[in-house]
């Protein structure tokens, strides 16, 4: 069993699950993708799983202090200091990782729109408890990087007892 994989049974503390879409537009060409996500936080690591109900888990990004590991279903594995850089290397564009983390911590006081590491974030719909549920993100094109638009819909938030 790979030493990089968090030991099973590691106490998961918090988690959000949902669905997303992302579209990348540059010089008149656009491509998009969509799927489901699970953002998990435990002592010592955080993890973003991306997949689809019909396809299982397709890729996994595990973040440790100062180190990140990216794996896809075909066995490809990337490792580096920055989770953001690893995802950009694999996908070919920026992925709003910080947004997942912030939406986990978002509370009813979260503004309806704010800026987050270069992304313009707008909360379009909230849960009955006032928590962000449907969120649209936009990253304006800049020196060679395309316009990126992402949509996140949070299906569930889970807090596990310590």
């Amino acid at each position, binding site marked *: 069993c790979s030493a990089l994989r968090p030991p*099973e049974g590691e106490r*998961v503390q918090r*988690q959000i*699950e949902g*669905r*997303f*879409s992302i*579209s990348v537009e540059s010089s008149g060409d*656009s*491509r*998009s*993708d*969509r799927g489901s996500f*699970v953002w*998990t936080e435990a002592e010592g690591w955080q*993890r973003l*799983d991306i*997949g689809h*109900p*019909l*396809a*299982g*888990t*397709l890729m*996994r990004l595990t973040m440790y202090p100062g180190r990140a590991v990216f*794996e896809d*279903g*075909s*066995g490809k594995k990337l490792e580096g200091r920055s989770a953001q850089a690893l995802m950009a290397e694999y996908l070919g564009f920026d992925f709003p990782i910080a947004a997942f983390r912030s939406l986990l911590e978002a509370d009813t006081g979260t503004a309806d729109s704010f800026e987050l590491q270069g992304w313009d974030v707008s909360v379009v719909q909230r849960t009955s408890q006032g928590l962000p549920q*449907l969120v649209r993100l936009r990253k304006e094109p800049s020196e060679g990087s395309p316009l990126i638009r992402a*949509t996140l*819909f949070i*299906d569930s938030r889970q807090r*596990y007892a310590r």
Partner: protein
Amino acid sequence: SGIEQLSEFLKSTQSASGSFVQENSGRNASAKKNFSGTFVFKRPGKFVWSYDKPYKQDIYSNGRQVSIWDPDLRQVTVRSIVGAMPASPAAILFGNNDFRRDFTVKELPAEDGAEWIEAVPKNKDSSFRDFRIGFRAAMPVAMVMHDSFGQTLSLKFSGWKKNPAVGPARFEFKPPRGAEILKE
């Protein structure tokens, strides 16, 4: 045998509809989830796979392109069928029965009153390591898949209607007003 029932299913069932329940489970805490919904298909390659629970999501294939409609995101993603869902349950069961070209198939012992086969994708890019399909009366009753991250997807099928008349329009998705269309 399972393989005989698979061949019979691929040959004698040119269209069908039914319901499914799906359970995703795995080693890590995030894995356990239950889904349910309905499906309808017509060979080759036309199908509608509709999730009703825990959320609404419809996957349409008209044999040329796959449209995934998500009312919560208010978006439909449209992509070519080529490589859209290479080795997914829908592609296997509803595809154009060149099963042996895409999978290495082997017989498994009977279990739960069904005859089983194991299918391993020849294409190593598949997100699943293997599929197991259980048959009764030449119809799939269950399917179990293992992905590369230790997750297991188990599907149970019921309420089969075999070879109903289904027109091509059934497999065409028409986006509702206000829906955003994201092209591949």
